[in-house]
């Protein structure tokens, strides 16, 4: 069950004695940073605007149309996506789809994401390891005192 502390950080209980606190503001910033990459992956198949909003929300990247449309417009201007109108339904719908150039950009972004993720993991794992080492060196510490 998730609870929040006075600073608004959420707590996910993973098991007895194990708590992980997340920071909603930092999480929102991180998600904003990778939003373009995620959108480019979802545009592998043709999607219209509201469909993409729902797909992003389902993937955990809740976004409003007012934020998404400028991103799609920029993708179009940079030729990362192509667009076309379809009259298959009751009214015209604009579909967006990743272009060849967009595919290349997406691959570069994905590699960049991998690189950053690995570098971050390396620092975090090193930090956690040294925390464990410090804890191990200080026997008898009472965290509640």
């Amino acid at each position, binding site marked *: 069950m998730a609870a929040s502390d006075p600073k608004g950080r959420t707590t996910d209980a993973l098991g007895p004695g194990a708590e992980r606190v997340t920071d909603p503001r930092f999480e929102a910033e991180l998600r904003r940073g990778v939003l373009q990459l995620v959108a480019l992956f979802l545009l592998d198949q043709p999607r219209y*605007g509201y469909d993409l909003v*729902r797909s992003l929300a389902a993937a955990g990247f809740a976004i409003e*149309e*007012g*934020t998404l449309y*400028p991103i799609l*417009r920029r993708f179009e201007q940079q030729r990362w996506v192509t667009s076309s109108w379809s009259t298959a339904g009751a009214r*015209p719908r*604009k579909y967006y789809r990743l272009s060849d150039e967009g595919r290349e950009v997406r691959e570069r972004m994905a590699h960049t994401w991998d690189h950053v993720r690995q570098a971050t993991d390396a620092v975090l794992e090193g930090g956690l390891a040294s925390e464990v080492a410090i804890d191990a060196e200080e026997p008898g510490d009472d965290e509640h005192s």
Partner: protein
Amino acid sequence: MMNTPDAASRLQSAAARAWIARLSALLPAAEAERVRTDVEAMILDHAEAACSADPALDPAEAERLALESLGSPEDMADALVDRPVRVTWATWRSVQRMLWVLVPCHVLLSVVLTAAGSTTPALPGLLGPLPTSSWAATALAVFGVLVVDVGLVVLLHAVFGAHLGRIRPLGDPRLSANRGDAVRRLVFLALVAVLVNGLLKRLFTVEFASGEAASFLVDDVLALVPWANVVLALFALRDVAALVRPASARALWATDTLASAAAAILLVVAASRPELVRFPADRLGPPTASLLTSLVTRLFVFLFVVGALVSALRAVGGIRRLLATRSA
């Protein structure tokens, strides 16, 4: 698949139509129609999904709910175009930053023109000496400088908008402390010194068919050459400081600021000389001599004023940098 749907709006609510109309009004004409059809389609998709989830929902109300997810038309327009549609905090900060540099420079140049005894403006309406008939007149003139600069900065933002960020910010000049760059700058200064001291008269000389040559620079301008040497020496001192103590950024900036200020003063004094060039009327004929004198004088004044402005901006930028790093 069709390229673009027909232009007729399918929106049912007046609120949605008004929102779209406001957005279209804020966008450049080339973008407006395309964006209108795209955004309208998004509103209709959202409204359709909302009505599917709640069949009792009124379509016009569903469109109104869709507008909430779009935000304001001003926010959307800001996100779509390079130029700021509204004055936001980011724009205001950029305007302030420019004014903090431009106004002191402008006032400094006006003061120098006043001290040099100039009676005519260097740039009519934009740069000229301050009135000294009374303190009130001087204060009003300084206020006029502020008003002109505010207008200029707002105009720059309106025309260039987001591209302004790509232009090196005013008051944040770059100066490499690298030894190699310092040597290159010293070589450049040496070439300028040779030009100013050895070749100036020869460069600005007009030759006649008879083989005779006459310099068209007046003595008043040539009398400034020693002062130009002082300015060049100050710039050279800056680069010597970079060679001797490359790690001392403050020494580098202090000497650069001093040299830039001296250059600005010298260029303003030069621009305010009553006469800069004189073409021989006895050789060229009075009309031709007068025309050439007028054209070349205007060109020189323009170059001197632009040079003075650039130097003054650099000097003010250097002072701000020194003040900012004083506490570091």
